[in-house]
Every structure is written in structure tokens, then in C-alpha cells.
């Protein structure tokens, strides 16, 4: 288990190291004490639900939506919701980052086959991707404030997924981009939002400049979209996170995707059901900040009664740390860099 520093809330699992938290004399954190948070969540979900029904009321050709499908349980279930609950014609899109668990790759094939969905897989240059992850593990690419819900490595990977999905959506005139994020992984007001690439460009500029400095000019080709493409956009696609509208426990999601042939992969940590790199990214995050990047997400599930505190603790404690050196070697870290990361090189 990766040891997280300091105390945790006695009701949820948020650590004292989590930014902006205070604790009362009984050890209850300020998020658990603030009852208005839940009210705002409910309002946001109601609003997003209305938006979703409006967005899906009209059908489009060739696709109603592109679904970012990692092969994990959440995106597999999002794909099922899109097809079976909302009746959408979808294109499933996977970014193969080279660290997909073998069973996750099989899950993508099985679930898309059962649902009768077309699948598009994109694999970036592995030498580029490894450089990106090495940079996020060793340099302050992103500001601390933006890393409360996600590790830097996952942020870099998901930004790549989002950019590629938006490129495909614009090229194919697809109006919606669906992803399997849950509340806590994203803010409540971002369940549905218009992906205005140029408007949001300011928020990426600083981190992309740092990434370019560390990795090289090829960052631009992967993380930006050409002006010629953006100039032809009349209306940007909406990003929609359908899972945020479902009140389901993790076990219930697994039970439902299992009916589609989905199987739980081995060798991944308790917070991932598809990516082996997650363990490494979590390790780097916890070492740097003193809390797990999954604490906020799990604390919301605990407050909503969809997970027990014991289960939440077990999930963030379930890390195949014995594989960290293997992952670091696979990413191309030198022996000195292993030691800087607190790992012993082979």
C-alpha cells in the first residue's frame, strides 16, 4: 500500500493534505460538513439531465456521438448507456497509450461487438508518449491547483484523448463527445459543456509551453488542432458525461457491463479497470502532494451512499507497487531518475 501522509476525514476518505480542507474536533472534513454541496450537486444533475435529453432529441449522420472508450468499466458502461438507453448511433474511440491491460483491450473488442458499434483505435508514437509521462513525473508541467482530481500523468493522457476525440468529432460532424467520467473526476457543472477549443486554449497555453520545452515541438501536433480545421467549426461539439446522471454503485456497473462480456483485468490498481500506468501516476502524485488523486471522486461516492468508507480506503490502498520499477523502466527512466522517484532501479 502507498502510505498517504497525515490524517483522513473520519466520514469520507479525504486527507488532511487535500487542498483547502479543514477538520472539526470530531475529525470530520469541511466537505462532509457542508450540506449545501449536495444540494448544488442535485441541481447540477437535474440541469444536465435536461440538457442531455435536448441534445439527444435530434439524430445525426453518420454518428450521434463519439464515445471515448478506454476499455474500463465506466467507459464501457457509458457506451452501453449511449446505445441501449439513449438509442444513439455511436463511434467508439480508444487511445492506446501502450499501457492498456491486455484484458482491457479484449474488453473493448467484446463490448463493441456485442453492442454492434464501430471501433476506432489510435496509438500515438510511444517514444513521444513516454517522454510526456516522464516530463509529468519529474517536472511541474501543470499547476498544483489543477491536480486535485487527477494525476499529472493521467491529465496529459486524457488531454490527448480529448484533443483527438474533438478532432474526429469536428472532422466527421459529430455533435457530442461522450466520456465515462464520474462526479468528483469532473466538477458538477461540467457534466455537459460545449467544447469550445479556442476559448479553452488559454487554459492550456502555460502547461503546453512547459511540455513543449520538456518534450519538444511535436507536442503541438498532438495537443493542438490546426486553424484550418477550427475555422470551419460552426458550433463546437458538446462533451457529455452520462455516468454522472446514473446513481449506481461500482458493483452494479460491473454487473451490467459483465453482461456485455466485460471482464475485470488483473495487474491494475484498485482505482483503474483498464490502465497499468495508473499505478505509476498515482504513486508520483501521492509522493508529491500527500493525497491520492482518487480521494475526491471516492469521497463523493461515499457521501452519496454508493460506497462504504472501508471500500474507498481499500481501493486507494490497492496498488501493485511491486510493479513500479517495471513501469519506470518501461517509461525509459534512467537509474538516477529511478532513485529521484524513490524507486530502486533493477
Amino acid at each position: 500500500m502507498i502510505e498517504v501522509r497525515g490524517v483522513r476525514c473520519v466520514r469520507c476518505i479525504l486527507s488532511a493534505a487535500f487542498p483547502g480542507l479543514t477538520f472539526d474536533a470530531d475529525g470530520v472534513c469541511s466537505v462532509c460538513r457542508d450540506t449545501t454541496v449536495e444540494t448544488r450537486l442535485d441541481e447540477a444533475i437535474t440541469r444536465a439531465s435536461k440538457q442531455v435529453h435536448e441534445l439527444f432529441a435530434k439524430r445525426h449522420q453518420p454518428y450521434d456521438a463519439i464515445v471515448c472508450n478506454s476499455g474500463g468499466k465506466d467507459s464501457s458502461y457509458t457506451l452501453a448507456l449511449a446505445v441501449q438507453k439513449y438509442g444513439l448511433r455511436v463511434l467508439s474511440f480508444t487511445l492506446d497509450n501502450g499501457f492498456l491491460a491486455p484484458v482491457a483491450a479484449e474488453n473493448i473488442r467484446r463490448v463493441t461487438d456485442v453492442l454492434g458499434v464501430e471501433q476506432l483505435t489510435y496509438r500515438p508514437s510511444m517514444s513521444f508518449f513516454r517522454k510526456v509521462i516522464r516530463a509529468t513525473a519529474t517536472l511541474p508541467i501543470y499547476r498544483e491547483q489543477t491536480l486535485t482530481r487527477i494525476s499529472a500523468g493521467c491529465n496529459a493522457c486524457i488531454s490527448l484523448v480529448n484533443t483527438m476525440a474533438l478532432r474526429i468529432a469536428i472532422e466527421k460532424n459529430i455533435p457530442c463527445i461522450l466520456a465515462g467520467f464520474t462526479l468528483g473526476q469532473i466538477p458538477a457543472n461540467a457534466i455537459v459543456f460545449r467544447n469550445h477549443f479556442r476559448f479553452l486554449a488559454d487554459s492550456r497555453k502555460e502547461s503546453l509551453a512547459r511540455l513543449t520545452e520538456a518534450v519538444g515541438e511535436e507536442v503541438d501536433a498532438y495537443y493542438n488542432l490546426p486553424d484550418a480545421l477550427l475555422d470551419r467549426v460552426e458550433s463546437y461539439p458538446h462533451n457529455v458525461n452520462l455516468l454522472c446522471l446514473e446513481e449506481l454503485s461500482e458493483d452494479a456497473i460491473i454487473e451490467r457491463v459483465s453482461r456485455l462480456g466485460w471482464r475485470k483485468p488483473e495487474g491494475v490498481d484498485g482505482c483503474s479497470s483498464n490502465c497499468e500506468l495508473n499505478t505509476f501516476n498515482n504513486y508520483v502524485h501521492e509522493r508529491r502532494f500527500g493525497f491520492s488523486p482518487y480521494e475526491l471522486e471516492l469521497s463523493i461516492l461515499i457521501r452519496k451512499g454508493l460506497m462504504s468508507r472501508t471500500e474507498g480506503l481499500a481501493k486507494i490502498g490497492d496498488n501493485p507497487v511491486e510493479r513500479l520499477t517495471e513501469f519506470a523502466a518501461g517509461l525509459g527512466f534512467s537509474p538516477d531518475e529511478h532513485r529521484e522517484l524513490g524507486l530502486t532501479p533493477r
Partner: protein
Amino acid sequence: MNLEETVRVSLLGFVTQSFNVAAAKIDMNKSLIDQGIIDSFGLVEIATFIEQEFRIVVKESDMTREAFGSMNKMAHFISGRMEKSA
């Protein structure tokens, strides 16, 4: 307090509460992104808050640095739009 000032106070309350930052630490004339207070999701959150709280529609053409480039710019944009629709 005029409308723009009222809007500014409400917006400041949302930003301080949502992004765990003290009001005194916010430069009202600088971009919240440049100050490291928000990321892209933060921009999305603020745009949604503006639509809900002030009952105005934020169009794609409104999504510019001119309208969202600082707390003061946002307050000016919102109050201007509210006065137009009044």
C-alpha cells in the same frame, strides 16, 4: 452598490468558494488562468454559474478573453448583458 459591483461580489463569492482561494489573493484585473486559480474545467464552471446565477445566455461568440479575461471583465460583461435584456 451598482449592478456591476453587485455582480462582481457574487462572482467573487463563487470563485473563492469553488476554487479554494482567498479573495485577497485574486487580482481582479488578471486572468484567473494566468493566476493559476482555474483550469479549463474552471472556465466551464464559471460560464455555467454565470448562466444560472444571472439568467443570461453565454453564446459561443461571447467566449472570448475580452469577456472572460479577468474578474472585472466578467463582471462588466455580465452586467452589460443583464442591462441589455432588462
